[in-house]
């Protein structure tokens, strides 16, 4: 069973189905897209049930050659770091498609773009070949560019180009870095390969970078830069406010998943493959992350537009993810990884609600609103829940991730890994988040109704409420039972940290884990076999 391939390419099948339908049948197009993403989500849940959380090796691995001359393969694998991101992608893609019933212009192309995006994101979370990862990573650009350009707001042309050029600029250097890494692998082993399992095996034994420790940080930065742009992290974040402000709602929801490709890149590639550079360069990255937290929060507080406010809030929240990852402590990285999910959920619910507001009112400017609570109590209630999750109130998912990330950062600070002052400053980010989010809530829902147009705003419809309710379920699930999410990633996170922090020769290897898993499987099978033999005797 090529479960991972099926998962990755199911949305593409959906694209074909959608394109075969006539443009006039808008409802069937929407249903086909929704059905596809629903099935994809079901397949990803199936993966979760079969997932073994006791190993850090790649599971359901698929390995076949693609470009043999260059050692590029079609390799997929799932581990504790990617499992939740895969589920987040399939879930939020479903939400994004379900939330796009109001799109009436070029529905076919719209749904096709969303599904291609989903496929590309799944592919990049699942690839265990760097070039394949890069292929999927870049494949997201064109559909997203189209989404902004065709269905976007007023300044869509500017926003779309800014998005694409920024991301492309970051990733072209990633490409140079990837090629250089492949070349180093060639030098170390004599065969060319972009298989990260093989490359990491060399790194773990200290062979790959032996004698090239001076170059390692340069290649590390080629990788880090692309992921920092994508994450986004200060000072490479300037594309995100435009993208969030001008995209259609579904585009924003999916780009809130897409930014995880950046943080995922750090976990999957930067930490395991550049352990020596990580130690020296991470204090700089941590400083960027902390500046991002505080700067994002401060700028968010003065935004007149809800979407731009949310964009800067994303910058701030993703800063916590990065800070957690850069702490290189188990608690911190787990917190960061969890915060990725929380941010995905809480950003989606808020964007969804802001989208509903925009549909009803045609504006997302704070000054146009006020006193909505009286007219739309349910709307206000769910907005409050989403907002509190974003603030990080205990009991919601936002709290657990941020708290763990900060604890991890403090541990790292005490170890002298980076300055403790940084962590203290980052702590203020939590307070600032409360400031700008509560300010937004107060502006929109409390006070007097200032504008006549707001007097007759309808409350949430059932279908809208159902979608939002689904997200709220995860907010509390993540807040009250975080272990559901933490357990499966524990072993993988643990070993990723060891890969980055141990001396050469002591670093765990994906290759060994895979071999051990195979052995286990064989062992599990033998007893029944022997039992059978014994029974026959």
């Amino acid at each position: 069973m090529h479960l991972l391939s099926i998962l990755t390419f199911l949305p593409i099948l959906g694209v074909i189905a959608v394109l075969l339908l006539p443009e006039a049948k808008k409802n069937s197009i929407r249903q086909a897209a929704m059905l596809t993403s629903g099935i994809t989500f079901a397949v990803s849940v199936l993966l979760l049930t079969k997932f073994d959380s006791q190993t850090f090796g790649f599971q359901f691995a698929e390995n076949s050659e693609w470009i043999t001359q260059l050692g590029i393969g079609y390799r997929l694998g799932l581990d504790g770091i990617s499992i939740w991101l895969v589920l987040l992608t399939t879930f939020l893609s479903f939400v994004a498609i379900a939330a796009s019933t109001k799109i009436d212009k070029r529905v076919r192309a719209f749904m096709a773009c969303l599904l291609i995006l989903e496929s590309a994101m799944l592919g990049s979370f699942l690839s265990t070949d760097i070039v394949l990862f890069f292929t999927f990573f870049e494949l997201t650009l064109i559909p997203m560019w189209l989404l902004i350009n065709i269905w976007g707001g007023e300044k869509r042309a500017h926003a779309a180009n800014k998005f694409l050029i920024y991301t492309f600029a970051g990733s072209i250097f990633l490409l140079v870095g990837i090629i250089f890494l492949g070349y180093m692998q060639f030098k170390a082993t004599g065969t060319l390969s972009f298989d990260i399992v093989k490359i990491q095996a060399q790194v773990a034994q200290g062979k790959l970078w032996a004698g090239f420790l001076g170059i390692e940080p340069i290649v590390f930065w080629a990788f880090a830069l692309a992921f920092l742009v994508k994450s986004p992290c200060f000072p490479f974040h300037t594309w995100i406010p435009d993208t969030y402000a001008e995209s259609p709602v579904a585009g924003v929801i999916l780009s809130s998943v897409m930014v995880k490709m950046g943080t995922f890149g750090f976990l999957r590639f930067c930490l395991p493959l550049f352990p020596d550079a990580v130690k020296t360069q991470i204090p700089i990255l941590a400083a960027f992350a902390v500046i991002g937290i505080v700067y994002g929060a401060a700028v968010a507080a003065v935004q007149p537009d809800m979407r731009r406010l949310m964009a800067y809030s994303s910058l701030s929240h993703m800063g916590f993810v990065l800070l957690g990852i850069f702490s290189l402590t188990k608690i911190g990285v787990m917190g960061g990884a969890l915060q990725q999910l929380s941010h995905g959920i809480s950003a989606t619910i808020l964007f969804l609600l802001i989208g509903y507001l925009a549909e009803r009112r045609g504006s997302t400017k704070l000054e146009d609103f006020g006193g909505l609570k009286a007219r739309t109590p349910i709307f206000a209630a769910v907005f409050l829940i989403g907002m509190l999750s974003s603030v990080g109130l205990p009991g919601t998912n936002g709290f657990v991730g941020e708290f763990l990330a900060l604890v991890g950062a403090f541990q790292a600070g005490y170890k002298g890994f980076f300055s403790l002052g940084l962590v203290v400053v980052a702590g203020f980010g939590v307070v600032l988040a409360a400031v700008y989010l509560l300010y937004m809530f107060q502006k929109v829902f409390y006070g007097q109704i200032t504008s006549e147009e707001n007097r007759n705003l309808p409350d949430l419809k059932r279908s809208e409420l159902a979608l939002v309710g689904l997200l709220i379920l995860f907010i509390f699930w993540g807040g009250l039972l975080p272990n559901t999410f933490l357990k499966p990633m524990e072993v993988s996170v643990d070993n990723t940290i060891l890969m980055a922090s141990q001396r050469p020769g002591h670093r765990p290897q994906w290759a060994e884990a895979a071999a051990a898993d195979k052995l286990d499987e064989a062992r599990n099978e033998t007893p029944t076999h022997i039992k059978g033999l014994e029974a026959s005797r």
Partner: protein
Amino acid sequence: MDKAFHFAVPSLDWTALLPVSIVAITGIIALIVEMLRPKHNNNLIVGVSVVGLVLAAASLIYGMTQPTFATAADMAVRDSFGTTMQLLLVMASALTVLFSEAYLRAKRIPFGEFYPLLLWSTVGGMIMSSTTNLLVIFLGLEILSISLYVMAGMSRREEKSEESAIKYFLLGAFASGFLLYGISFVYGATGSLDLNFVSAIYQSHDQTARTMLVFGLALMLIGLGFKTSLVPFHQWTPDVYQGAPTNVAAFMAAGAKIGAFAALWRVLDAFVDMGAYWIPALSVIATITMFVGNFAAVVQKDVKRILGYSSIANAGYMMVAILAYGKDHRLGHGTLTYFLLSYTLMTLGAFAVVSLQARNGRESTRLEDLNGMWRRSPLSAVALLIFMASLIGIPPTAGFVGKFLIFFDAAKAGLMPLAIVLAINSIISTYYYLAIARAAFVTDSEQTEELSVKTPSGVSGVCAVCAVGVFAVVLFYSPLVSFITQK
């Protein structure tokens, strides 16, 4: 005394000459058909040309299985490089033929002579790419160019077409002069027109001969630099591309470039011992070619001009591949060949889409004129988007793999600075490629007029072939590259 008059008829192996002959004869047949045809129908000529090109391609693919050899007194060589280049030329020519008819009619210049000229131009390119004899290279270049001069001026009612023909002709003649002058230096140094002797003479440490070789190489590079549009010999490119009929510009961008790069490759391959002279010089030229091509393209408003500058920039990228090969001979010609293949697919495809802009004898190719293409012809708009993505180098398109290979070769050959320059230029290029894609795809004002004009089947065919090809050459990279680089 006797010896001077002794002339042995060289032996001929027709497997080496067959493809060229087929294309040349097809050109003649096409011309005869043109003379006999009923007045307003070129379809038979198109049919004959396509059949001839397919036959030529078949004979080339058969030739791929043959060992390397030289024939006709070493004036024609059959090797994997030459044959692949010829295949590319035949492909470019066939694709151009396919989308030309609709364009020529729409532009109201339905001259049947176009097809024979195009075929002979292809012949010139094919001759250039499979020889090591400098005079034959020159001959091929002239056959290629003279046909192009005529074709560029084909739209006689338009001043810009005439201007473009004259400009191309004058500068082309100038370039030929440089090339010939360079060849004469090499002949003076080696006593032979064959490139294979260059290395031996250089190794013999004859200082005079060496100096002459350096001069010869420099002059030949100027001549070939014109044809490949390397900066600073590029000025004609955007003007000629803009002025010439779109299908001619397409063949110039793809076909003429293949021929010129093949010749350049042959020359530099022969002068490999003198890498110390030409590698630094051409590194500088490659760098400025990339920057000038890309920066100039950013400010352009006309699609054909943008594609002209894009072809300059791409020439710079290809130079990097050649330089890497010059530094490390083990790299082989796979990268250049693959890049040319991908470049041909995406550039020809893009020109084919642009050719849709011709209507009722007029042609408007400013960026904003593309607006609404999404409504008029959704398939070509999607194809154009794919070509632009490929030109930018977004995976999984051929353009990405082409750039990937160049980066890789550069890393292997120790040319990291050039790879970085290429990376920076790729970023700059996104801007104008996106502008083209956006113009076609996005309608700022949703005008409802001009609803779906029927796209000619030739154009949609070429779009489909190129768009599918852009992905197919990535998917089937392994068999493809082992085919084009076999010994």
